[in-house]
């Protein structure tokens, strides 16, 4: 930056040479010092401006970066990015102490008339102020003279020129930083911004959506407003595409703005159900639908005469309201046994959760009281306090069992039912049933002898086959067991055997006393009683009520033999010799099964009256009046969907060639398309991408592109089920194969095979 150097005027030169007075000289020095101070301030201001510019450059870059990276509509990072660097730069560019001396050095370098002496003007500037004592003696007279000269030289110069002489480099640097910052900010703005996953998903959805934005000039705008049910607590939202996922029961409002030529707008649901949109203003149509099932939606714009535009089908997916989940935390095990006299309280703990919150929960109790056939049931419901939040919550309930009527000979069944807030009907979840029964109330059917310390298995599981299995297991394990343990287990099985014997013994009217039968000895041995000379089995004992009424004679005989076998087995088991008991147990089991078979009754399942039998035609081979079943069976009709799909596939011929005229006339009849369209729509609703892609091609098959025809081919093949019928091999044509087969068949004589 070269400025013309101001030259001292001739008048000043003369004044210096004439030797100015001391006062004049001091005033000149003071004036020069003031000039220098002003210049220093200007220089500082210039530095601060430069710093502000540089800070602005950096801030621009930061602000744009914050704008691209920060979430939308958050201006704080942008403002901070813009302002903070400016403030920081201004703070850094505060005037330093060395500024005046630096200014002096700068002026010395740029102005030769100052004779490298501007530093003298800066020495104790307060001393040179008017009204102050003369400069101290630190300056030699020569220096003072030089200072005066310098002051005069400085004063002789034009101050504006001096200002221009101040260094411009800080300002230039600031400008350069600003320009660089602006360029980088522009670059950042131009670069594609990294998008959040949600934004990417939105963009992908928009790319997938065939009806995104306005794909046709007929359609000006499309707004789909989704209002989820109030109980879901979800806000309503707006989409610009037809394929949206909505909550079950949500109200979906389609608002369509169209071009003036469009007269009517309709939604085609599932390719078969047209829903006309209502005019809600000039060129604005709306429709509202409550969605309870997934649909396939198309938008159809109709002009005065025909269809102007038809959107590709889009899936209206349903976010189903799932049933609440319920986890029974306590009691851990069921049944719960409580003393009948003081059943106390039962703590029930459940964990609940639902996708939109639980509406209510209650404990349902069913009390079964009485025994035998006189059982009465009573149901009570106890509401539980639940929070209507979707989060998992644990609910505690205390059931006072006595209040609920639990006593001897009664059982209480408890379960928890939870319902959510789904409309119109809530989802209900039920917990497993908790069975509460009085402890120790079950009775053995026969009194067992005391003195055998064994664990009593439930009578339910006691059977002759189980005793046999237990005995076999004991025999297998006997070598590994101690003698005492083997004897204990053998006696336990013997106990079971005894209980079983007594249970069956009651059927024959045996009197039992301490587990021992008290009847006549011959009954135990199974020996038949009868008058001498009359074979057993031919005697009917009229004196025994059981014999005469309950069982037929062979059954009774077998029962007695079975009891005898059980008696033998029991005795052997009690002595700890299970191997000897085994044949007796087997005999008892065989006899028991025979008795069961003898007692079985066959009840045929009949749905109606059969034709009366004609005994005269029985086994005669006469078939007159007997009809085939085939005519009664309905005719197997070929599926019209499959037939239509195959016909269209044959016409498309793999999508390789355009349709022939005959194919157009025959296959593309409205009836055939009307069959195919709902079938493809159903598959598309079920999630088939091929079917969804095929539907647009079905609008105009004749003029469809090759890609559309291929998509249609793929979709149509999904409608065709795999063939089931068997096939025949094909014989090669001509006599050669026939001759070969005949000679091959004649090669092996009959009877020689194998």
């Amino acid at each position: 930056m070269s400025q013309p150097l101001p030259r001292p005027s001739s008048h000043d030169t003369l004044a210096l040479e004439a030797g100015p007075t001391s006062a004049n000289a001091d005033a000149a020095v003071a004036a020069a010092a003031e000039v220098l101070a002003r210049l220093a301030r200007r220089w500082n201001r210039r530095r601060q401006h430069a710093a502000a510019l540089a800070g602005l450059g950096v801030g621009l870059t930061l602000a744009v970066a914050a704008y691209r990276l920060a979430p939308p509509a958050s201006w704080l990072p942008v403002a901070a990015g813009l302002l903070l660097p400016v403030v920081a730069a201004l703070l850094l560019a505060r005037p330093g102490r060395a500024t005046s001396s630096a200014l002096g050095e700068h002026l010395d370098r740029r102005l030769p008339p100052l004779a490298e002496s501007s530093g003298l003007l800066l020495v104790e500037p307060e001393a040179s102020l008017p009204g102050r004592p003369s400069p101290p003696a630190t300056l030699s007279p020569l220096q003072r003279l030089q200072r005066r000269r310098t002051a005069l030289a400085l004063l002789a110069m034009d101050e504006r020129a001096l200002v221009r002489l101040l260094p411009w480099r800080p300002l230039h640097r600031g400008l350069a930083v600003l320009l660089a910052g602006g360029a980088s900010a522009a670059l950042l703005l131009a670069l594609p911004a990294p998008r959040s996953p949600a934004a990417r998903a939105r963009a992908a959805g928009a790319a997938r959506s065939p009806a995104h934005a306005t794909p046709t000039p007929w359609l000006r705008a499309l707004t789909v407003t989704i209002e989820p049910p109030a109980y879901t607590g979800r806000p309503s939202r707006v989409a610009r595409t037809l394929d949206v996922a909505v909550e079950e029961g949500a109200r979906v409002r389609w608002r369509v703005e169209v071009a003036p030529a469009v007269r009517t707008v309709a939604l085609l649901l599932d390719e078969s159900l047209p829903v006309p949109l209502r005019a809600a203003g000039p060129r604005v149509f709306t429709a509202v639908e409550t969605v309870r099932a997934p649909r396939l939606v198309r938008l159809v714009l109709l002009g005065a005469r025909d269809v102007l535009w038809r959107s590709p089908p889009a899936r209206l997916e349903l976010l189903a309201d799932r049933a609440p989940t319920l986890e029974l935390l306590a009691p851990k095990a069921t049944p719960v046994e409580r003393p009948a006299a003081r059943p106390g309280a039962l703590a029930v703990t459940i964990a609940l959760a639902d996708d939109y919150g639980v509406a209510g929960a209650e404990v349902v109790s069913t009390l079964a009281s009485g025994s035998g056939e006189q059982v009465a049931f009573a149901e009570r419901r106890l509401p539980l306090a639940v929070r209507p939040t979707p989060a998992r919550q644990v609910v505690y309930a205390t059931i006072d069992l006595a209040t609920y009527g639990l006593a001897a000979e009664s059982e209480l069944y408890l379960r928890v039912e939870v319902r959510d807030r789904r409309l119109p009907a809530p989802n209900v979840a039920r917990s497993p049933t908790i069975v509460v029964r009085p402890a120790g109330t079950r009775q053995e059917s026969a009194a067992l002898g005391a003195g055998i310390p064994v664990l009593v298995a439930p009578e339910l599981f006691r059977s002759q086959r189980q005793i046999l299995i237990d005995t076999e297991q004991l025999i297998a394990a006997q070598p590994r067991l101690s003698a005492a343990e083997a004897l204990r287990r053998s006696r336990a099985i013997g106990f079971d055997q005894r209980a079983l014997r007594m249970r069956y013994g009651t059927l024959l009217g045996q009197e039992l006393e301490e587990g021992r039968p008290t009847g006549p000895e011959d009954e135990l041995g199974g020996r038949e009683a009868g008058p001498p000379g009359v074979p057993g089995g031919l005697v009917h004992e009229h004196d025994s009520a059981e014999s005469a009424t309950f069982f037929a004679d062979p059954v009774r005989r077998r029962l007695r033999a079975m009891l005898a076998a059980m008696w033998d087995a029991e005795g052997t088991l009690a002595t700890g010799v299970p191997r000897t008991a085994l044949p007796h147990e087997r005999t008892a089991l065989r006899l028991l099964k025979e008795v069961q078979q003898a007692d079985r009754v066959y009840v045929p399942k009949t749905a109606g009256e059969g034709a009366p039998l004609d005994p005269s035609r029985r086994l005669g081979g006469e078939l007159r009046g007997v009809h085939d079943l085939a005519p009664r069976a309905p005719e197997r009709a070929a599926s019209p969907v499959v037939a239509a799909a195959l016909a269209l596939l044959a016409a498309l011929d793999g999508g390789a060639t355009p349709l022939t005229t005959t194919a157009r006339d025959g296959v593309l009849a409205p009836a055939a398309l009307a069959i195919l369209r709902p079938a493809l729509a159903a598959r598309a609703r079920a999630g088939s991408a091929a079917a969804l892609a095929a539907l647009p091609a079905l609008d105009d098959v004749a003029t469809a592109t090759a890609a559309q025809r291929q998509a249609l081919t793929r979709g149509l093949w999904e409608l065709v089920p795999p063939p089931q019928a068997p096939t025949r091999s094909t014989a090669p044509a001509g006599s050669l194969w026939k001759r070969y087969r005949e000679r091959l068949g004649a090669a092996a004589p009959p009877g020689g095979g194998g």
Partner: protein
Amino acid sequence: MNALQWGASPAEIGIALGMALVVWVAVAALELWPRSPAPALAGERQRLPRRRTGAPARLLLLAVALFALVVLVARPVRLVVTGRGDAVLLTPGASAGDLAAAAAAGLPAWGLPPAPGEPPLPAGAPELPDAAGLVRLHPEASRLRVAGFGLSRWELAELSLPVVAPRPPALPFGLARAAWPRRLPLGAPFEVHGQIAGAPAGGATVRLAGPPLEAVAARLPAGSSPFVLRATPRGPGRHLLELRLEAAGRRPANAQLDVEVVAEAPPAVLWLDEAPTPEGRELKRWLSAAGAPFAWRAQPTRGVTRGEVVGVPGLAGSALTSLTPGLLRRFDLAVASPRALAALGGGERAALDTAVRDGLGLLLRAGRENDPVALGVRFAARPLPGGGELAAHIAWRDGESAALPLPARELAPAADLLPLASDRGGRLLAAWRPLGGGALGVTLVDDSWRWVLEGHAADHRRLWRETITALARPAAVPPRWEVPPGPLLVDAPVTATITGVEGAPPAATVRDPAGRLLPLAPRQDADELSRWSVTFWPRQTGWYAVGEGAAASALWVASASAWTVWRLAGREEATAARMAAPSVATPTRELVRRPLPLPRWPPFLLLLAALLGLWIADRGEGPAAAAPRPRS
């Protein structure tokens, strides 16, 4: 046996030797002759006489240099014994090493241009226009040594020369072999058999897909391994299926398989039993649902017959009372139990026998019979060791069925028995043999309806589908043009054959994808006069149709660059077949000594070394002579 000879004539060698000798002698004389020192001029430093201490070495080096020159002039050659007319043919896959080996063996080497997609020839190999060009351009070639993957079938057809091919290089990753049916009845499974090559260590996946069928895939181990993929097309029409081979780190190989599925009438099955059985009921349920004709007849007692007909138009159950030839002609397969067969009257038995010899299939459900007999043919069954029950897993070609409890026995294999079903242990459970024009089968697999109840209906369907297809009366089809299995390519000849044409030659036309009709002249087979064939070279990719009307066949012709590995494997096969063919008589090999020039670089290097030595010797002498020597 090699011998060293000279390329130059003896006179040339003599002249060169003489000149070298003269030069050497002259130099030796100059070197060794004692010379008087030259008079010293005033002011000049006196030159001392040169000390000739290195003269013998220099002369030796000179001799070496002259010898190298003479050898260079004399052009030594090595005589290599080769067969007269031997040549090396470089085919796709040949390497630069093959070319160098041919040069080393003194054999001429020519290359054949590779087809699109095939590996290129090594650089520097002289290229022939085609295989036939070799015979025209080099008639002296009489025996070819083939390097690379070999020659294709039609290239070998042009060459009648004997061919020797060493071990070919390994095939690259791809589909090396593939065969599939070009025409299928609807319902029959489409099976593609093939082999892959060059699969990496991680293995490869081969996948068959297409719109009309469910995609199937198979995982294959590393290297070269065969595969079978099976899927059933859903509907009739011309289908183009995709066979895709994928492996980690390799470019996937795609191929297109064409198949024409035609809807044909399913076979009619007649079920003969002594009483209605669950087996017959399940078969009826399946066949009636599938739209196939089915009839069953039960004879609970002599003279009492019950029957039902499904899907046979014009036939009522009452018509099944007696088996007549006319009735049996309406069916393609009869399934009978031994008791039902035993209950047949004499007339019925004769009618059944005649029908089977006329083409009807008869399947005997052996039940618990020891040695089931049908129509006088006895099938021997034998109990399995151990007895009890056999949990049979029927072995399919691509897997096995669920277990089916069967009596523990098997059919005794016989020379005239064809297996119909075996379990995975190889025990024969069903078999058949031809009887006249028909087929007579026997099966020990009973109560297969249990599969359906246990949720394995596919096994039931597959067993019976295969049984019915094997035994039912074959469908009579009119003569039709057929091409051998495998891919068809642009610019490769396609030979179509028609069999069963009696009398006048058939009309042979080919319709190309553009719809142009090309008439061809069929040639008659010399051995079988009812067989005719045509050969044509497709020029564009797409569907071709050979023949017209009922004789027409649809073919998909792939582009010339497709199926590269298959083509290379075909070259290998054809070349190996030519080598193994006994028809190509190897002519008596006449051995000749072929001069093979020895490389020139050794004598040239020797010359350079000798000259360098001479120069160094001279340099070593120079400074020593130039340096002022101290006066003594």
